[in-house]
């Protein structure tokens, strides 16, 4: 039994069997398997050897055709080694005797031979050690590739343990059997965290070396709420967590029954609950949880998933797929919001000193009009397929909004010239996430159709806190009275100008703030799909009057502690099991 602490990035508790994905760099951690997994490992070894031989035969033939028999013959040697029955038996013996994985056993045996080659006095033979390394790598690649294959065809529920999941790996996952994630690396905004939250399964990241401490087949408890992983738990822990898991499941199934009930208060005031997504595949799950539309489609993933900037057709394909899945429900597409992230910074020729105050988001788009136009053109083309809305992020001055709209007008004129159909009345909105935009909401309201408050950035820029910086992260708080005053004013400015207002930051999905936001007059909440049922439950349990009173009281406080304390008490009165 071992307890490991990490960062809980997706809540919930799950107990299941571990499956470990090895790192791509072929560093094979030593792991033991259970005795009943031995035949499976031997079978995997045999399949890997056969597959490697087939690959090498093809390579040999290609090389022989291109460069002649002499060079192609090198691969005959590799094939000969892989066909060596004695070698195979030695690897099998390693698996059986030491309960090793096929990867580890192959690596151990091949390295033993490599050392023998290095010890030889005959230089020509000694040089052959390179071939031995090559053969080992080929074999390992095949074994690991197999595991990726295995992940697509899981037969039982598993918890995925990995160094850090790559987008290509999560894309291949058979999601119906994956019950949780635990990774060595990563933070709150890592790919694993985002995927786990979208899937609504528990995840703990930043565990350091979980891949070397867990073996495939181990029993593991993942507690995403408390950021804990328990490897091979004892009976007491199992009992405790099974109880907790059962309670959670009960709560979830109660919440699921809420799905088809309207999101309205006791006195019949309806609000719209929508979901935030990163890729169209998440839509079905969000709708199952009760999303009435997509309030935030983060299109960055189109740029990050591929190793090139997406062309117009790739944009269009993604938007068309999203609209088809939504069947008439609204889709708010946020234009590219990259710049301050590590991907762009690493690629940049001159990294910025202060990227969050730098060339990011709409600023970056306005500096690269052709790229911006490709995305806008694809959005406009898709507008005839459903209820599409365009949202510009990180707007800080009216000039930026006007420039962005001018680019959009250019795109519209071009589409007209080309005779391509599009919807003329497509709603245009902005993210309110910079204090200057919040303070000027009245002015902005005259030039857009909707606002969406991005609370994460709004808090960061209002309080001057980088929440990924551990030393100051404690200062990051949505309940700060200054943040709340900005949110209140934006909602008011929207109401006065008939501009709809939503909140699409994390605050919208936190039950603690539901009463407050409702009381401030918010009509659209956009959040991660799994958060929808609980927020809906709170909304359905109060009257507008009650929520307004809560909001009025909250706005009279002068510290975030008072705000949070009061909101916790008030929410508990409605849903005692919420906290």
């Amino acid at each position, binding site marked *: 039994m071992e307890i490991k602490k990490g960062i809980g990035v997706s809540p919930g508790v799950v107990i299941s069997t571990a499956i470990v994905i090895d790192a791509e760099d072929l560093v094979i951690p030593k792991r033991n398997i259970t005795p009943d997994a031995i035949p499976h490992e031997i079978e995997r070894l045999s399949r890997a050897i056969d597959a490697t031989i087939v690959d090498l035969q093809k390579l040999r033939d290609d090389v022989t055709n291109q460069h002649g028999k002499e060079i192609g013959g090198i691969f005959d040697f590799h094939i000969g080694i892989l066909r060596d*029955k004695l070698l195979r038996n030695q690897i099998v013996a390693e698996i059986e005797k030491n309960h090793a994985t096929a990867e580890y056993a192959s690596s151990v045996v091949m390295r033993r031979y490599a050392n023998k080659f290095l010890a030889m006095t005959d230089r020509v033979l000694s040089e052959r050690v390179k071939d031995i390394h090559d053969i080992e790598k080929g074999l390992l690649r095949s074994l690991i590739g197999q595991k990726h294959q295995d992940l697509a065809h899981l037969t039982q529920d598993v918890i995925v343990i990995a160094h850090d999941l790559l987008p290509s790996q999560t894309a291949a996952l058979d999601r119906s059997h994956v019950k949780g994630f635990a990774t060595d690396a990563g933070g709150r905004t890592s790919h694993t965290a985002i995927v786990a939250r979208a899937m609504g399964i528990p995840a703990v990241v930043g565990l350091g070396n979980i891949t070397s401490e867990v073996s495939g087949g181990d029993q593991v408890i993942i507690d995403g709420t408390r950021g804990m992983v328990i490897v091979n738990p004892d009976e007491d822990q199992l009992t405790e967590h099974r109880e907790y898991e059962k309670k959670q499941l009960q709560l979830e199934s109660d919440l699921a029954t809420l799905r088809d009930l309207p999101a309205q208060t006791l006195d019949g005031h309806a609000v719209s609950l929508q979901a935030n997504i990163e890729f169209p595949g998440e839509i079905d799950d969000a709708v199952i949880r009760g999303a009435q539309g997509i309030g935030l489609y983060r299109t960055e993933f189109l740029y990050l998933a591929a190793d090139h900037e997406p062309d117009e057709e790739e944009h269009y394909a993604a938007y068309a797929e999203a609209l088809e899945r939504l069947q008439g429900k609204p889709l708010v597409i946020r234009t590219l919001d990259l710049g301050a992230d590590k991907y762009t910074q690493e690629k940049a020729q001159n990294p910025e000193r202060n990227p969050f105050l730098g060339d990011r988001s709409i600023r970056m788009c306005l500096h690269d009009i052709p790229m911006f136009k490709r995305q806008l053109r694809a959005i406009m083309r898709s507008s005839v397929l459903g209820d599409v809305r365009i949202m510009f992020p990180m707007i800080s001055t009216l000039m930026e909004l006007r420039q962005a709209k001018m680019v959009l007008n250019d795109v519209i004129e071009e589409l007209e010239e080309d005779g391509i159909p599009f919807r003329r009345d497509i709603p245009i909105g902005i993210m309110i996430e910079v204090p200057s935009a919040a303070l000027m909401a009245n002015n902005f309201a005259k030039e857009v159709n909707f606002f969406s408050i991005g609370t994460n950035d709004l808090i960061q820029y209002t309080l001057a806190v980088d929440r990924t910086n551990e030393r100051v992260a404690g200062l990051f708080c949505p309940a700060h009275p200054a943040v709340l005053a900005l949110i209140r004013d934006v909602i008011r400015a929207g109401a006065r100008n008939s501009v709809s207002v939503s909140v699409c930051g994390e605050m919208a999905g936190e039950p603690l703030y539901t009463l407050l936001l409702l009381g401030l007059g918010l009509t659209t909440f956009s959040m991660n799909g799994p958060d929808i049922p609980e927020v809906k439950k709170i909304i359905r349990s109060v009257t507008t009057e009650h929520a307004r009173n809560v909001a009025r009281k909250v706005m009279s406080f002068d510290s975030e502690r008072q705000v949070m304390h009061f909101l916790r008490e008030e929410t508990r009165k409605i849903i005692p099991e919420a906290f």
Partner: protein
Amino acid sequence: MGLHARPAMQFVDLANQFTSEVRVLKGGDEPVEADGKSVMQMIVLEATQGTPLTIEANGDDADEAVKQLAELFESKFGEE
């Protein structure tokens, strides 16, 4: 004649055509023994040119195996 990759593979290919067990012994300061049907072991044997080797076979077709394997050495692995 050193037992480098290609000759070692030829030797092993031939050895594998017999049902008998084939062992190759290298004498000298540190006597070493190799499985004549394993390429890996035959190479690790490090039988450089001029190393005296003993071929042993055990089984139904042992005599024929030793005869043909020795011939392979005598023909210098068909090269020259």
